[in-house]
């Protein structure tokens, strides 16, 4: 008895919609099993991971002593935190979608994110007193420029020398981490910072404003949604989108259509680098308000999960980013309410990516159990 794959004539529309959901369900089942093994109540654990953060749990104790409303009112604060966490993931993943669709493997978004943050910080750090309505737009543009330039390195190496972009972009992540680490401890360190790594806090005109007063959520979230819609439009409705898809599916066919795979490599990396850079500077200017040594949190890698979970569709990616963000926030909630260790969140993310990848097979192939009953027709 063994599995056998049979290529479908065309991609299955049904499964291309269903597969992310199947993957989610399988992840939940696997997660429940994991909690049982850990000796935690499986349903309560899953609840505190994925439901509790969304709703307010409150107790009307003094009024109705044995009647409590639970999970009725959406938890605004928690939803806001999910938004904050999803913003960089969505920004990076939308860029990666373009790159992956075109058949280019940018694994180094984390590095482009960091360099974006560093480039964007240049103006507020070096010209701290410069207050102008132009400051913020320039800061954001510098961030995109930094990410794009850093993405350009693996792209040019691939298109000029045929170097493997997976490996070069990955190596560059580590170089970027060291570079940022050095600059915030050395040349850019705040002289009044008690010796701790980190630059001066940004001037107000260089800070990405909050969505409303006292909010943690900043305009990066709006930028992410706008970017997702724009990229969706580009992929679905423009000739550039067509070019990306054709080259991604078959470089040979692309060549016959007159498209250049080399130019596409450069375009894809510049684009995804710029998006990662934008995510980086949004975090720096919107959340931290200075550049420090804690910028690298692995968003560039998590965004790869997001991109796949969203099926490389920008709108799907926005949803996927929210799901992943929920798993972070839920991880904290479960730690507080049940004492589930924070590693569980990582395991969830790994499992989710596994199941997403496995379910994607269903889109292009029929899976059969040879010499046994059909597994999936």
């Amino acid at each position, binding site marked *: 008895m063994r599995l056998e794959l049979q290529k479908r004539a065309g991609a299955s529309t049904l499964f291309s919609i269903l597969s992310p959901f199947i993957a989610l369900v399988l992840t939940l089942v696997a997660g429940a099993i994991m909690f049982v093994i850990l000796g935690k109540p499986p349903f309560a654990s899953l609840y505190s991971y994925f439901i509790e953060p969304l709703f307010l749990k409150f107790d009307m104790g003094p009024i109705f002593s044995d009647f409590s409303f639970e999970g009725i009112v959406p*938890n*605004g604060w928690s939803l*806001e935190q999910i938004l904050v966490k999803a913003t960089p993931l969505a920004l990076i993943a939308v860029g990666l979608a373009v790159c992956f669709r075109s058949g280019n493997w940018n694994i180094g978004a984390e590095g482009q994110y960091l360099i974006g943050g560093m480039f964007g910080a240049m103006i507020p750090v070096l010209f701290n007193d410069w207050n102008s309505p132009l400051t913020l737009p320039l800061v954001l543009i510098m961030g995109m420029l930094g990410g794009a330039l850093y993405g350009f390195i693996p792209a040019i190496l691939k298109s000029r020398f045929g170097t493997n972009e997976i490996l070069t972009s990955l190596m560059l992540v580590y170089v970027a981490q060291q570079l940022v680490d050095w600059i915030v401890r050395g040349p850019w360190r705040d002289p009044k910072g008690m010796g701790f790594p980190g630059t001066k806090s940004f001037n107000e005109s260089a800070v990405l404003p909050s969505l409303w007063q006292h909010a943690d959520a900043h305009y990066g979230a709006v930028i992410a949604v706008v970017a997702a819609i724009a990229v969706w439009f580009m992929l679905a409705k423009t000739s550039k989108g067509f070019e990306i898809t054709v080259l991604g599916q078959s470089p040979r066919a692309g060549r016959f259509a007159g498209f250049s795979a080399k130019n596409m490599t450069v375009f894809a990396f510049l684009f995804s680098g710029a998006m990662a850079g934008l995510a980086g500077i949004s975090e720096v200017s919107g959340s931290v308000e200075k550049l420090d040594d*804690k910028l690298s949190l692995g968003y560039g890698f998590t965004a790869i999960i997001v991109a796949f979970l969203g099926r490389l569709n920008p709108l799907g990616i926005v949803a996927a980013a929210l799901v992943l963000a929920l798993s972070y926030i839920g991880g904290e909630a479960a730690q507080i309410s049940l004492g589930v260790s924070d590693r569980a969140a990582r395991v969830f993310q790994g499992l989710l990516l596994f199941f997403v990848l496995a379910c994607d097979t269903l889109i292009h192939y029929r899976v059969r159990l040879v010499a046994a009953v059909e597994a999936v027709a």
Partner: protein
Amino acid sequence: MKKTLFALAASAAVMLSAGAAQADGHAKTKACFIYIGPTGDFGWTYQHDEGRKAVEAEFGDKVETAFLENVPESAEAQRPIEAFARSGCNIIFTTSFNYMDPTNKAAAKHPDVKFEHATGYKREHPNVSTYSSKFYQGRYVQGQIAAKMSKTGVAGYIASFPIPEVVRGINSFILGAQSVNPDFKLKVVWVSTWFDPPKEADAAKALIDQGVDILTQHTDSTAAMQVAAERGIKAFGQASDMIKFGPKTQLTAIIDDWAPYYKERVKAVIDGTWKQQDVWHGMDHGSVAMAPYTNMPDDVAAMAKKTEESIRDGSFEPFTGPVTKQDGTVWLKDGEKADIGTMLGMNFYVKGVDDKLPK
């Protein structure tokens, strides 16, 4: 539209959580802790968690505790601190320097919750206190022991980041050593991490190969202790008693004992007497303790105990003149004591450190 919806939900949340806190007011006091590392690091975070357990043991049913481990520093800490404040914690201890800004931000939003921030200096709201310990006092004792025990006259120091806290420890160590042997030298290696056992082990091996025969560290793992044990030299434990990682190796260790402080502050919340403060306790308060003096002759142990005692009763302070800086200029004149500002922002070496302070 979206904005107002969120705002409404947020204000509802605030009202409800305030209501919940009132309803719970007579029940348990909830003390919550934010940790930088895993509770099992056997160093910094482990000791804070021991303090948390001491609170539970002391107050029993009257308190409830919770903790979040591996919380990244800086802006990422904002959310967990707030989550705690919203989940009904009455007092929140944030136990790493870079939780400083997020702690103060959360304090502004939750005036009813008490915040205690370790090793920081910002108290922007009346509900924020800061606390730290004078670990450098223990370093002085270690320096004296090192100078007595070393045959090569050189000790090695595995350092994390060139922040004042670490520099203070290095200076105190060399001052202690020089009080025994004026020619004593100290080699410093910076590993740029608080916690990376293989890297700390590499640094330890390199220092030993460079001729040091006593190791001390300002990083959090027990790796250096294990390397010292393997190579047959002596070493000092850090933050926590590491004797089981080097039964024949550890001379003593500086133990961060947070239990007295945590009990005192939680009690203040229970009694309703909590007030903002800034404390920098040392051996006098029991916050800095020394692990048993082991693997050394009795006379060395006796000397160490004597120094420890004189620091505890206040008759002696490590940073007392005459002290010369590394560049040869006089820092403290004979009998002069260091002022607290210079201590807190220490960014220079004293004479005898064989290293250039990274800028």
